[in-house]
């Protein structure tokens, strides 16, 4: 099932939490929803899951309007809300049984599904404990288990790895990748390596507005415009090196990264530039000690797009 969002707007008072967002998520795609706190990620997810209504715009899931078929469509959505609210006084097993029942899973399949979920999320030792007694990481697993218990075609996960330790995070990411092969997944986070590790596509919003949409790769290209090489050339007069580098026809711009150590950032037009730099050094008997492609980190892109 795919998700299509058209011109979604939600106001809280005079403030627009979500401002005219349009978005398509294809079946089997994992979309990372990125943005600083208060950007409107959670609000958008609440609208997709039909917890709150948008002021304007429409959501279509599998081609059907959420506004008209909410109760039917909700059966196909698994949702992990922000802060992972759970009935804390219930034991894990009872809670999962309740969730399974309310999703209308047939009686004879309820226990199988619960067993599967407990296995997938690694809750075996904790299954008879009350949810209130669990640590945050295990609660998070219960939250994931309840979201997946009815084997939904769409998973909406609001910060699925918050409160987990690095090992658990790796496990959950693997699980999401696995699930994402056949399901449509939207997950929100502000942990940037997480999106790179799990998502096919990144959707960055800020102050309710879309600021970037694409793979990590394309976003990088977009943010940089050109490829940048970091070059360090020892044994040469900095100014002369600078001039010669700028004279190369494949170089669009050069600036000093570190004058003292003869380090430069070379903005280049084509791959050919590496050979040219090498030849330049050989001709002038300079020593090339560093030639590395300079990757813009997702952090930088994110900061650039969301700070103004």
């Amino acid at each position, binding site marked *: 099932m795919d998700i299509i969002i058209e011109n979604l707007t939600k106001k809280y008072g005079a403030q627009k939490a979500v401002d005219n967002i349009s978005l398509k998520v294809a079946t089997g795609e994992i979309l990372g929803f990125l943005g600083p706190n208060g950007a409107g990620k959670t609000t958008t997810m609440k609208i997709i899951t039909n917890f709150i209504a948008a002021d304007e715009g429409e959501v279509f899931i599998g081609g059907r309007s959420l506004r008209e078929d909410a109760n039917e469509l909700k059966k196909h959505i698994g949702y992990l809300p922000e802060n992972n*609210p759970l009935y804390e006084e219930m034991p894990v097993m009872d809670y999962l049984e309740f969730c399974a029942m309310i999703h209308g899973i047939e009686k004879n399949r309820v226990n199988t599904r619960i067993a599967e979920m407990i296995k997938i999320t690694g809750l075996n030792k904790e299954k008879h404990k009350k949810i209130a007694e669990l640590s945050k990481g295990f609660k998070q697993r219960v939250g994931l288990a309840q979201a997946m218990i009815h084997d939904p075609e769409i998973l909406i996960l609001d910060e699925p790895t918050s409160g987990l330790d690095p090992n658990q995070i790796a496990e959950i990411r693997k699980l999401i990748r696995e699930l994402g092969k056949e399901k449509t997944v939207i997950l929100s986070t502000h942990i940037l390596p997480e999106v790179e590790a799990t998502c096919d596509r990144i959707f960055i919003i800020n102050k309710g507005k879309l600021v970037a949409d694409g793979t990590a790769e394309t976003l990088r290209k977009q943010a940089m415009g050109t490829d940048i090489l970091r070059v360090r050339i020892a044994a040469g007069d900095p100014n002369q090196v600078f001039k010669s580098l700028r004279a190369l026809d494949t170089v669009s711009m050069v600036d000093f990264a570190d004058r003292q150590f003869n380090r430069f950032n070379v903005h280049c037009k084509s791959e050919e530039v590496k050979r040219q730099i090498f030849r330049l050094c050989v001709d002038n008997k300079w020593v090339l000690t560093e030639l590395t492609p300079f990757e813009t980190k997702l952090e930088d892109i994110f900061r650039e797009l969301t700070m103004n």
Partner: protein
Amino acid sequence: MNTIWIIARRELNSFFDSLIAFIMIILFLGFSGFFTWISGSDIFLIGQASLRSFFGIAYWTLFFFIPAITMRLLAEEKKSGTIEMLLTKPVTDRQVILGKYLATLILIAVALLFTLPYFITIAKIGNIDAGGTICGYFALFLISAAYASIGLFASSITGNQIVAFLTALFIGIFFHFLFQMISFGMKGLFGQIINSLSMTVHFESLSRGVLDSKDLIYFGSVIFLGLFFTEVSLSKRNAYN
């Protein structure tokens, strides 16, 4: 229906797990038992084989206890955020409300059933009016259902249980005696209308053993309006405009 029952069952379990149910039943039986049998205008003072004094006491104890039962129903879920988890499952707002309401009614019915020994005891002592007593229980159940519906509404408008409790009591006070008091000083049609809004008036006529459709319509309307406004208040969050 099935979904409503699943919700009601979870709610009942939660009543009993959190000891609320036990505390309520014990307090209810304690209070009403004390004033029915031991103190005040108890059965021995009146000297009649009737449960009238019990009904009078229970009418007051239920007035205070029901808001205490209903206050957490929606307010707690709003506060902890579980309402979001619940309402994004394939359930309608109405099913959630009816499920919770049903659980409350069952708890009240259980509490009332525990007073059955009163009935048996008096039936042994003297010649009890069985029809009238059944009517009395029925009246108690109906006022409970009406206050539960008001309590559920109060719980739906806030995330704070104390506020929910006090709001339910505040609304309840009007039905419980303010309408009747106000109507004392009034004449004519308007006074009659205010008087007919009073729960006490309808409770007394019903618990006397008079099964009048007017009373049934009255209780039905209060219950319906309470649940209706609960749904309005709960559905506000995702109403398209």
